[in-house]
């Protein structure tokens, strides 16, 4: 029976690995699409693909709350607002500026990025390999994350929420009609 269990565990891990590769590939593809598509709607939709696959990666790391928050906040709310704006402005391809000297910029960018990329590659290669396993004990659950957030990180949490509130008020003031009510 134990042998069977071990085999089953190995199968699960293999399945999780395939899922990881699939989701990672999708998220990279989405990111590439975001910068290569010319039409803003295509770019936004490929970014949605990236965000959803990132949510899948969080789920693989048994961070359930983060998975849900990623879907609700980023993929659900923020991106739907961005797509809403793209629909609202109805930008077509002929509205976009011509990109002259694209090749030159690409070349320059590649030259700048290459050392950083090599550095990153070295870092990734030097990472020690280790097996992943499910941690358990409610890791990443709503309750656990909430407890940590409101016990150990209460002050930063409140400061961030005030920051967001300030940004919100600022946006309302900037967008509000001028001279109304005077």
């Amino acid at each position, binding site marked *: 029976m134990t042998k069977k269990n071990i085999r089953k565990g190995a199968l699960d891990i293999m399945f999780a690995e395939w899922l990881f590769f699939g989701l990672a590939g999708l998220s990279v593809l989405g990111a590439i699409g975001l910068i290569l598509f010319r039409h803003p*709607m295509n770019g936004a939709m490929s970014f949605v693909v990236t965000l959803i696959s990132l949510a899948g990666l969080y789920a693989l790391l048994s961070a359930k709350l983060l998975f849900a928050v990623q*879907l609700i906040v980023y993929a659900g709310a923020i991106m739907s607002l961005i*797509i809403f704006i793209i*629909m609202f402005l109805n930008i077509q391809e002929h509205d976009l500026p011509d990109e002259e000297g694209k090749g030159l910029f690409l070349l320059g960018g590649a030259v700048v990025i290459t050392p950083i990329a090599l550095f990153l590659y070295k870092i990734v290669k030097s990472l020690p390999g280790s097996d992943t396993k499910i941690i358990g004990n409610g890791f990443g659950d709503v309750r656990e994350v909430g407890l940590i957030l409101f016990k150990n990180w209460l002050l930063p949490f409140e400061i961030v929420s005030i920051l967001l509130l300030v940004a919100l008020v600022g946006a309302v003031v900037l967008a509000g009609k001028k001279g109304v009510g005077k």
Partner: protein
Amino acid sequence: MSQLDILLVLLRVAVGAFVPLCFIAVLVWLERRGAAFFQDRAGPNRANIFGFRAAGLVQNAADGIKLIFKEDVIPGHSAHKFYFVLAPLIVFFCALVSFAVVPFADTLVLEGKQYIMQGIPMDLGILWFLAITGFAVYGIILAGWSSHNKYGVLGALRASAQVISYEIPMGLALVSLLVVYGTINLNEIVHFQGKLLFGFIPMWGVVLQPLAAVIFIVSAFAETNRTPFDLAEGESELVAGFHVEYSAMKFALFFMGEYVAMFVSSSIIITLFFGGYQIPWLSTETLVAYAKPVSMLLMGLVPVAAALFCGWMMKNNKSHYDRPNDPRVREAKVYRIIIWMMVVVVEAVLVGYLLYAAGGAADRILVVLLQIVTFLVKTFMMCFVYVWVRWTLPRFRYDQLQLLGWKMLLPLALLNIFITSAVVVALS
């Protein structure tokens, strides 16, 4: 995985997928007959197969066949045909998948193993519902935008602005509710509502959080784009709104998606505020402990209900003028035979259960079946409320709709959170 595991996985996925799909037909029927009822007319009652009209359900089959054989038009002027095809799929799929976390019965314990009775056995609960309904906006926006039609774009603008705005009061109403329940897991929420307040009132969400219930139900109506919030497709202004360019099965997907969304939000309302699958005053443990008397009671009640229903049907299902050999009476007689055959089957199963299987696993299975029936009945009643509101209230003006969302529901929801938290802190 044992065979039992596989069987139960199949069963749960089947219920999670087929129940919403079957409810499309039921709800379309309910909508038409309900509309007719409120307007004092008969509704669709002529379409038949060999004289059998199934109270008008055959009309749905006729509509389905019509939609399948219609020409599937993709407008030539649309520059984004991929999104045009994708949009109805997103709407339908999101509506269907959001049902996956709603528990339709209590956790089934068989051979020492627990089986969570929902389409996908995970404990994200209400967060999953919020996440998936958020995606439905994409379908609406993409449909309106890729149609390249001004009515389509206007409808999509209205629909998406409305859905995005009403998500906020909905989420805030949920916050106060979660403060009370202390969990996001829908099954635990239903368990919580099985308790009794002062020893005799079931602690349903609507009793503990009436304000949150009103806010949530209003927002849920707005989220499903139904009257009085159906500005998105206001026929008199926008023809059909975001799906004006769609035809055949693509239109049908939007149409069915709307009804699936209505079913799912009814089931969520039931789960959050009306005790979910719980039969009032009878918790799962009580039911399992008293499975034998309950099944005997059922044996008595089922024939009585069938007799009452048959009597009502025989009285009403006849032509209103003299017809030789009235086909409607003949139809009703056939239905009567079918109903009594079903009653005999139910009785036989119950007798078999009492004689051979009582005590043990069969008790639990019986209770699960009872709870599924309760859940479906409750959800059906909530769906009727949707139909009721749709054919009773007129449409809002669009600015009134946004004002209601932002200036009424949002402050009320915030106030509710403060009051609820204060009470919860004071009581603990």
